[in-house]
């Protein structure tokens, strides 16, 4: 293992965008600093980051369950009805022999968002309640951070909008409870990642081990 850098007189970080060493400082809530050389965001000031993120993640868990259990959309054409849940599209693609597409749609609309929600709860709950840090917290929290760009709930919602318009001339579409839960889930997961300050989590994890 490489040794950690000697404690400098002022705390520093290396910018991920350009490798410049920049001094860190305490930030007021909502403020953020950008690297003076390349403009990459270096620090985000978040008060009560862990508590807020936990609250949003727990709300997200409820909405995620609703969004996956209840009917997402009902399609009515000439007296015939067809109901679909969130996972139906992935299953249909899989059954049609398009396994790759099915897995991709499943992971981006259900899998990665689930990894983020459950991962956050798994890492942050013991941290918040001063328990022993969760096992493999480093790997789990890294997975949560890495899965960010692959969870595409808001993109999915736009896809629903386009499908809605395409079908509106031939049939009637009725959004179900899961659709509204899904829309709320987008708000809540966005809030969760906006209130998350990974630096605070890493330092707190470090202090507890």
């Amino acid at each position: 293992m490489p040794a950690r850098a000697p404690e400098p007189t002022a705390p520093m970080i290396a910018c991920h965008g350009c490798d410049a060493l920049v001094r860190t400082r305490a930030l007021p809530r909502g403020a953020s600093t950008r690297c003076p050389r390349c403009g990459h965001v270096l620090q985000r000031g978040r008060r009560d980051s862990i508590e807020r993120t936990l609250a949003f993640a727990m709300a997200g868990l409820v909405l995620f369950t609703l969004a996956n259990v209840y009917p997402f959309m009902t399609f009515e054409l000439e007296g015939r009805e067809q109901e679909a849940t969130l996972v139906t599209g992935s299953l249909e693609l899989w059954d049609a022999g398009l396994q790759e597409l099915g897995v991709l749609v499943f992971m981006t609309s259900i899998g990665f968002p689930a990894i983020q929600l459950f991962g956050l709860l798994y890492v942050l709950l013991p941290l918040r309640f001063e328990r022993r840090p969760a096992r493999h917290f480093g790997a789990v929290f890294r997975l949560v951070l890495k899965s960010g760009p692959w969870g595409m709930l808001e993109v999915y919602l736009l896809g629903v909008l386009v499908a809605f318009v395409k079908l509106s001339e031939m049939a009637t579409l009725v959004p179900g409870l899961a659709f509204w839960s899904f829309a709320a889930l987008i708000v809540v997961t966005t809030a969760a990642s906006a209130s998350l300050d990974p630096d605070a989590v890493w330092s707190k994890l470090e202090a507890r081990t």
Partner: protein
Amino acid sequence: MSAAFVTASRAGLMGCHDCGLLLRKRHAAPGQALRCPRCTAPVHDRKPESLQRTTALMLTAAVLYVPANVFPIMTVVSFGKGQSDTIVSGIVHLAHGGMISLALLVFFASVLVPVLKLVGLAFLVISVHRRSRWRPRDRALLYRIIEQVGRWSMIDIFMISILVALVKLGNVATIETGLGATCFAAVVVLTMLASMGFDPRLMWDALEEDR
């Protein structure tokens, strides 16, 4: 201009790319990976084989971009008659149906974003190869945009998955997915991986060379 900044690399340090912890620079023994003592991520001074990886993924995506646009992404079969749509013809249909704003959105997400991403990444990779010192701050901004905008290209894929889930009414109406959809999804995933593999710090290393 960069004289005011000392890079971690020059100071004999490296920042963990996953948790940001500053570490003393060290090279791994062959066959061994250095791991961050805080978050257990593999650490390295720069992302390994960044340019090769990005170039390979980018070229694959560029090749697949052709079938993604030539082949239909889906076919609507209604009363025995089929109507196929490619990415572009789907946008044209939206526009003809009067949904200009939606057509523009899909055009932006499905046509413009993949092309601009590929061209932009190619430009960044070439600029690093040539050790360019041209406007590094603007190139850094370009990279951040490329990195964040890619996921929006998935709109069409999600649209298809919803249509496939809903429209299965036997001979009244069904949706069949075309080869174009698989190719297009591959383009989106490959360009996302390509931009993640690119190390923006390489652009700034050229400014360090004669110091």
